[in-house]
């Protein structure tokens, strides 16, 4: 009992738990390009909502969504939750203390849906703002898309059911997908969907009709550069219990970009020309080529990709413990965050001199910040004014 008391006394005195890393109380400040921890103690776990961000535990965060108005959500992957950042604290908006697929009586299968905090999840991967103010949850290991309405807190299944590959040509609502990892709006009401275990990119048009636009269903490999995207092959993690992999985003040029994780390439799809090509990566995992052309550079297990307001593509170069950037204007690749050495260090200093650990990627923050999804450090980190600020 005295140990408990002792810990309690220490808690009161120091504001930290026995196994918690010290929380940086001072707000992070510094010149543009300074990295700081935004959310997370560094210890994997779930210590409840309502704590200050630096005293909140995450567990392998996989993404974050930040709207232009500053509202933000964290995809707290191994805590099986979507958590909103509200007044400097985290609040679960979808997910429960349990693991599963929907609420106990599956009220989210039809309108008006179920309260998000009754909806069990299993490893959600992305939360995508929609034009109507709702957000679409990519419920990866539930093989579903779930629509969340922040005005009501309700969640409704929008796509998927049992895992499978079905439904092209029909309504996405009735289709089957298999561990969808990410989706990207095309700006015309449609979305590209990275359907991981099906090894394809699918498209859900503005009317809700689903089709396959790239890849060979259920067949992985590397094939097709220079040719028809529908004849191409991707290599996303497969098997019965794959780790997350693959990503899709749309460029300012309107092209579809795919993070082809196990091919260690970033590929670009020109739908008008019906052509797919590699823009980053040689196909051999490794680290190299900074300052040179993307097609001569090496990446290692690329994960999330997203374009910044500067027009560059930011790549979560997971096994290189770095964030890379590729400039489509020049074709040149650079490293923007991480020394390459896995670890946690560098808060308060330049981002390129900091250590990160298996980053899933980045998110574009408010006020010109770059948010690093520092997954294996169980933290989200912020590079201040990376894009020049407001």
């Amino acid at each position, binding site marked *: *009992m005295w140990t408990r008391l002792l810990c309690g006394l220490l808690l009161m005195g120091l504001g930290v738990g026995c196994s918690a890393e010290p929380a940086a109380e001072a707000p992070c400040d510094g010149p543009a390009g300074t990295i700081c921890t935004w959310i997370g103690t560094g210890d*994997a*776990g*779930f210590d409840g909502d309502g704590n200050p961000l630096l005293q909140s535990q995450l567990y392998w965060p996989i993404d974050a969504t930040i709207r232009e108005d500053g509202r933000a959500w964290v995809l707290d992957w191994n805590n099986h939750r979507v958590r909103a950042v509200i007044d400097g604290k985290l609040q679960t908006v979808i997910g429960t203390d349990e*693991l599963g697929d929907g609420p106990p009586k599956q009220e989210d299968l039809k309108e008006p849906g179920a309260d998000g905090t009754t909806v069990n999840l299993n490893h959600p991967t992305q939360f995508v703002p929609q034009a109507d103010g709702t957000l679409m949850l990519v419920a990866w290991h539930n*093989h579903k898309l779930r629509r969340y309405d922040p005005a009501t807190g309700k969640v409704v299944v929008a796509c998927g059911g049992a*895992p499978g590959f079905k439904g092209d040509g029909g309504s996405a609502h009735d289709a089957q997908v298999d561990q969808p990892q990410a989706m990207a709006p095309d700006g015309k009401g449609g979305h590209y969907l990275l359907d991981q275990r099906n090894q394809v990119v699918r498209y859900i048009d503005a009317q809700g009709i689903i089709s396959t636009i790239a890849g060979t269903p259920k067949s992985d490999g590397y094939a097709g550069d220079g040719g028809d995207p529908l004849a191409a092959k991707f290599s996303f993690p497969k098997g019965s*219990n794959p780790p997350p992999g693959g990503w899709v985003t749309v460029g300012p040029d309107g092209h579809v970009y795919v993070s082809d994780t196990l091919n260690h390439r970033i590929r670009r799809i020109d739908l008008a020309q019906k052509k797919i090509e590699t823009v980053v990566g040689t196909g051999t995992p490794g680290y190299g080529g900074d300052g040179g052309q993307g097609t001569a550079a090496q990446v290692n297990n690329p994960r999330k990709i997203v374009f910044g307001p500067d027009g560059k593509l930011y790549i979560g170069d997971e096994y290189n413990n770095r964030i890379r950037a590729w400039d489509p204007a020049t074709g040149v690749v650079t490293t923007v965050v991480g020394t390459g050495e896995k670890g946690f260090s560098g808060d308060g200093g330049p981002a390129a001199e900091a250590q990160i650990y298996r980053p899933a990627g980045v998110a574009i923050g408010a006020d010109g910040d770059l948010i690093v999804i520092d997954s294996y450090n169980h933290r989200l980190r912020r590079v201040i004014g990376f894009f020049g600020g407001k």
Partner: protein
Amino acid sequence: MRKQLLTLALGGVLATGCTDTVDDCADRTSGTICTFMGTGKAGLGHDGDGPLAVQLYMPQDLTFGPDEQPYILDWNNHRVRTVDPDGSVRTVIGTGELGDAPDGVATETRLNHPTHVSFAPDGALILSAWHNSKVARVDLTNGSIKTICGTGGRSYFGDGGPAHDAVLDLPVATVFDSQGRMIIADQGNQRLRRVDHEGNIDTIFGPDKTWLDASQAWVCPDGASPGDMACKVCKAAEASDAACEGQPRMRPVGFAGDGASAPEARMFTYFSQAAAPAGRIAIGPDDTIYLADTGNHRIRKMTKDGTVSTVAGSGPASFDKEYAGGYGGDGGPATAAKLKQPRDVALGADGTLYIADTDNHCIRAVAPDGTIRTAAGVCGSKGDAGDGGPATAALLDRPHGVEIGPGGALYIADTQNHRIRIVHP
């Protein structure tokens, strides 16, 4: 760094820091409950720390090995951990990353939600790699892991052939009978299967591979109703039927077979992608198998001759998937009592049957004379309280596992409290 400083600062005065192993539950009188492992907060913590400093995340169960060490199923950390004789926690199986449980070095394999550990007669650790749909053997002397049953696919296939080539669906637990044969609780398939000495697998509880009965009460996954196109009938041995690839399968769920032989017996343990662990088993010295028939809110048993009966729990005489179970009956016959989604069973040396009465948030005990009582927790009340006091005044939160340890102590996987708790004998 601050942690180290703290420990240093405290070291001189107190000899132990916060991360050291200290049993803070001084009262070891019979029936007192304490925390054995976990801080109460969901997390991973740090291997090398003591069991009371390390975090767990939804622990499912634990088993003591021949080495008398506990092996803890740290479910949402996707690993198996133990507490070494020096009091430090160590991961024995799994990196924590998701994967298909590849053979090789046990600490480098990647699991998805393992649920159970047992020990083979030769001392090898047998892992129910639940969501991997595999049963694997771990040689603790050299730290290697090798799949011995299941292809990793999720279906029902392979009876009559080698276990290695068989297909399981969420194997949740294993036990060994007195002849050394391994029995697998094949949760999603609603069956118990057995691997004989030649390494061949067969079904010993539930219908065999020829089963196809559209009139049987059954449930479709993902909200579909019987009769929906999604519930297309596939033959029981559908793993070899290409037309059924990716199709929802009929499962022989039900409640039947009490007083009859095992092929007519039906259980209801959860299935489909979103299933939660259910339906673990225990075995007695007379080879009677005890099954937590979770969805029927009963404990069933199957004697050596294959006769099935209910030993605890009650409910509608015929299968009713809407029946939600309940709480009641302490002090009376266990077969008149109510349970609520029991997930696990364990046998005490005196023949007492302990039940993880999960959704009642308590542990029930059935004495050899058939009378049921509550052994830990307050049935119907969930919470996290009571360490240092009587177990029956403590609160638990959805305990999924129960185990009898060396010396007869009762260990509880207090799942949603992220603790292992101990009731002193």
